[in-house]
């Protein structure tokens, strides 16, 4: 970790429990979906943290909490010393300029009724960064160029563009407010592989040039390995392992991480055939009623009796390498 002393973003014990209600006249709470159940991580300025895990593990909800699209039910999200979980509306507006997001689906993330120039220019206008229309148009052109699009695209509607081009527009909109922190919520998952590579390179290029910090939410491990400095693995609302990228790929310690990495096919057919791949058995349990103790224990190959009752906390087993498993030494 380059600047462990003062991380840009520090998430402490974040919880997001959605109530499950029943009844028409009198709504009763019959349970809660523990989408995020007490997670901790930190991102240093200029770093990229990859948040990986299967669908429904709470990684997108974590991103939505940091963006304050959801108000977390517990914990703290310290952004440059300010707690995003409890910040006032007025202060939040200023923070919105500093934290932006790129979405997964390049089709539904752009308003189909607005031209590209309006989509990118609107935040600039609303925040009063550039009130003069002509200078704002010049700034939009600059942002389009920066994201690898011809400035003439400003006059287009999103449905007149390809998926990759639209994703570049999404990135340009995120950059319009000159943020320092960008959440990429599966930002390349919906694109085909050749376009993925272009967008990944663009994100990497922008990070270096503009000094951005990313939270990269993904399930594609090869993209994460290429782009991220650190990786946090989530399972059922909890972080089970976090370490620098090379460390976690070379030496995964948590049984879930090991299974996740083993599930990535190897491009060489001989190696692939020789590999002893054991998929994780069973289904992901319901986050409404998660297993007691370690949430992974019903599917874990190395679980012991103690895993049923005691919830393992993240502990540092090597420098910078944290694992939430009692059986890992």
């Amino acid at each position, binding site marked *: 970790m380059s600047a462990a002393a003062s991380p840009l973003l520090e998430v402490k014990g974040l919880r997001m429990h959605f109530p499950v209600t029943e009844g028409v006249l009198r709504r009763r709470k019959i349970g809660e979906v523990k989408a995020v159940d007490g997670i901790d991580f930190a991102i240093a300025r200029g770093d990229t943290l990859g948040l990986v895990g299967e669908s429904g593990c709470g990684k997108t909800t974590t991103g939505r909490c940091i963006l304050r699209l959801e108000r977390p039910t517990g914990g703290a999200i310290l952004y440059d010393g300010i707690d995003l979980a409890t910040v006032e509306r007025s202060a*939040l507006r200023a923070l919105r300029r500093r934290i932006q997001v790129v979405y997964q689906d390049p089709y539904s*993330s752009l*308003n189909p*009724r607005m031209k590209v120039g309006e989509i990118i220019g*609107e935040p600039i206008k609303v925040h009063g960064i550039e009130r003069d229309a002509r200078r704002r148009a010049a700034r939009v052109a600059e942002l389009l160029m920066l994201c*690898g699009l*011809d400035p003439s695209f400003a006059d287009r509607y999103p449905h007149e563009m390809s998926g990759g*081009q639209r994703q570049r527009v999404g990135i340009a909109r995120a950059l319009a407010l000159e943020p320092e922190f960008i959440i990429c919520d599966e930002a390349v998952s919906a694109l085909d592989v050749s376009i993925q590579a272009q967008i990944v390179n663009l994100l990497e290029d922008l990070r270096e*040039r503009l000094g951005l910090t990313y939270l990269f939410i993904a399930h594609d491990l090869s993209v994460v390995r290429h782009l991220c400095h650190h990786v946090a693995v989530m399972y059922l609302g909890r972080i089970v392992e976090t370490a620098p990228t090379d460390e976690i790929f070379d030496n995964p310690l948590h049984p879930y991480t090991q299974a996740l990495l083993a599930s990535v096919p190897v491009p060489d057919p001989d190696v692939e055939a020789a590999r002893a791949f054991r998929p994780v058995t069973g289904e992901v349990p319901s986050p409404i009623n998660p297993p007691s103790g370690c949430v992974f224990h019903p599917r874990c190959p190395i679980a012991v009796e103690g895993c049923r009752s005691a919830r393992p906390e993240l502990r540092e087993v090597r420098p910078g390498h944290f694992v939430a498993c009692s059986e890992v030494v």
Partner: protein
Amino acid sequence: MSLALPNETLLDRSAAGRPFRRSLLQRVLSFCVREPMGTLGLVLVLAMLIAGLGADWIAPYNPTSNDFTAMTEPPSWAHPLGTDQFGRDLLSRIVFGARTAIIVGFTCAIVGGVVGLVLGVASAYFGGGVDMLFQRVLDVMMAFPLIIMALAVVAIFGTGVQNVIIAITIPLIPRCARVVRSSALSIREVPYIDAARTCGLGHARIILRHMVPNVMAPFLILLTAFVGQAILAEASLSYLGLGVQEPVPAWGLMLQGGAEEYASTAPWIAIFPGLAIALTVFGISLFGDALRDALDPKLRDR
């Protein structure tokens, strides 16, 4: 933040030229080719609009002046649609009646529609308690059929064009809000609304700039239906003697009184205003249906 030019290799120039877009005339022409029934509706609506707006020049007689030498005349060269029991020229009254129908129909539909649009989208956007409150109030209003609600409003405010407009506008609001809300609910969950919130946009801006334009297609179709409904409601109220009052020419009013009395001896007094109402509402419905297909943004540039 410094912004230098990116690597040329990253620049996506594919199809960078301005895309082909069609002019309004070309769009209207392709609408006519693809939607012949819609075009028929459009022609009927246009005929009614021209009649109403140009009534002063089109009508051969003053619609309120009586010619006691020509009462209950059948259609003739002098009076193409005949005259009523007071010797008033029916064509002139229908043409001026179109003006009343336009004023009432369009004002009610637009005012009721726009108020319903904003209420419906806001209800969906805020959700929770606000949505609950709005919807229950609208439920109460919807419990009354349009004409009953309008009768109640007229009973409170009295008759006359202005009060008829109020009476018909109020029951249209919940009908619009309900339909718009259901479209807006699906749009609220779309990422571009989240993106707008993340950019720090205010509630009003998100509702008006991001949500309202995306419920425009169902809204415009609803609006055309409302014009027809409002014209029908106005005719009904006038027929019941609770709407527009004599001597203002209005189609519903023309069906009342003399038209009933002379139904067998001078049927043209009832037939022509009735036809005017029927053709106008029919035309609006046809046009509205065709508009629904034509307004889909993904089909528009085909």
